[in-house]
């Protein structure tokens, strides 16, 4: 109830600001919302959304299937883990978006450049969370299994992987939240590959502020939906953990 009031009040203030011209070039929020509703059935906008989302999904998938096994491999051997960690800690703060100009040289197709940059960006949180998760595994549980004669693969599969799973899930959630940022950033800079960013640039050069804001509303909605989806999936997949 209070939340609805808050949203309504916020929209009213925005509407008034637009109608009274308090902020130059700001269209009333009703116009933006009507445009946003129109975009939901606009074929060219939907194909742009598709281009962005498919790049995000492909990049995330590649990052998961490479970075998680890499993290498992690097994390299981303590000497390797301790040697690799400083290198990882050193490389991680490098802003991945500074690689956009390089990626645009390496991949002439901007869709590929987008995916490559998403893979690079997503790999860090996945790798680090997997390695930290492995370091956090209960040593007694591992020793118990070893004591019963289980081999290293069985220990990894039955103890290490399940207790690392929540860390990996956190890594995936962080990765998801950055995919959209990276995708839109590449689309803004590298034309030709379509996507929400390309749509924004186009609407900007046509001076259609309502379309830009409407597309931004959809970008926010997509971000919200992705976060909700992965939080729900995490809760479902790791139900056994919440139960204890």
């Amino acid at each position, binding site marked *: 109830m209070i939340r609805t009031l808050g949203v309504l009040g916020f929209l009213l203030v925005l509407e008034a600001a637009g109608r009274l011209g308090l902020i130059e070039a700001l269209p009333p929020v009703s116009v933006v919302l009507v445009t946003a509703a129109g975009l939901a059935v606009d074929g060219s906008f939907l194909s742009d959304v598709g281009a962005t989302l498919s790049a995000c999904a492909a990049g995330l998938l590649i990052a998961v299937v490479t970075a998680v096994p890499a993290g498992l491999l690097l994390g299981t051997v303590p000497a390797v883990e301790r040697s690799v960690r400083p290198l990882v800690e050193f490389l991680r703060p490098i802003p991945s978006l500074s690689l956009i*100009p390089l990626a645009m040289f390496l991949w002439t197709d901007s869709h590929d450049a987008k995916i490559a940059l998403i893979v690079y960006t997503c790999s860090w949180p996945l790798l680090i969370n997997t390695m930290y998760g492995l370091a956090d595994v209960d040593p007694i549980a591992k020793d118990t299994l070893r004591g019963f004669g289980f081999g290293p693969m069985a220990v990894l599969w039955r103890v290490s992987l399940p207790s690392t799973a929540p860390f990996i899930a956190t890594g995936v959630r962080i990765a998801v939240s950055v995919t959209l*940022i990276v995708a839109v*950033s590449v689309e803004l800079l590298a034309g030709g590959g379509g996507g929400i960013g390309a749509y924004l640039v186009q609407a900007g050069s046509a001076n259609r502020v309502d379309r830009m804001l409407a597309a931004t509303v959809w970008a926010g909605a997509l971000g919200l939906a992705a976060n909700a989806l992965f939080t729900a999936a995490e809760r479902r997949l790791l139900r056994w953990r919440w139960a204890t």
Partner: protein
Amino acid sequence: MIRRLAWYWLIPVAALAWEVVTRSAGAVYFPPPSTILARMREMAATEDVAADLVPSLARLAVGWALAAAAGVALGVLLGRSPLLAKLVEPMVHFGRSVPPAALLPVFLVFFKVGTPIQLAAIVYGVLWPVLVNSMDGARHVDTQYLDTAQVFHLPRWRVVLAAAAPKIFAGLRLSVALALIMMVISELYASSEGIGHRMREAEGSVDIPAMWAGIVLLGVLGVVLNGLFLAVERRALRWHRGRTAA
């Protein structure tokens, strides 16, 4: 200390491997580190590097400070007032879900090219994680702390801030990396000076070593800022670590 440093052996080895591999492969887009360093030295000697570096760093510092101050203040306020929090919660969730890069073209309409856009982008990118974490920290303050403060006539806000500090710092730590990212992308997108703009120029003239000089510089900046922040955090939260470890 020396034992800890010994684990860093992989960094020089990796740099050396990079040098050897790129040199023997003659990779055009991956120049060896020695070439990049030579180009950096050359740029420092022949060009006015400060003209790009100073605006970038100034905007980064001002934008981050503005957003961090606003984020902490708003977050603590919302965290202590359940009614206000309920009123604005949907907007906060939505606002932080919008990828900040998507707002760059919008900012281009409302602000002038250059510093205003960069500042807007950095502030928007930094604000949300700080606000959400501060809100979370201020919301869950032990009522015993507040009661104790009341008995001893301590100002309430100080107790709240101290109790929320670990969470606030968690948000601030995230925000340092975000500020750098927003600085880079906004300069790549719309700027007439700064590190990002210089990289776009290098890209345009296919000056690959100069482009890498930008990447290396931003990387070093990322590492240094991260280290600096961790040092400040360790000092500021020393009391907290001591308490929780005991």
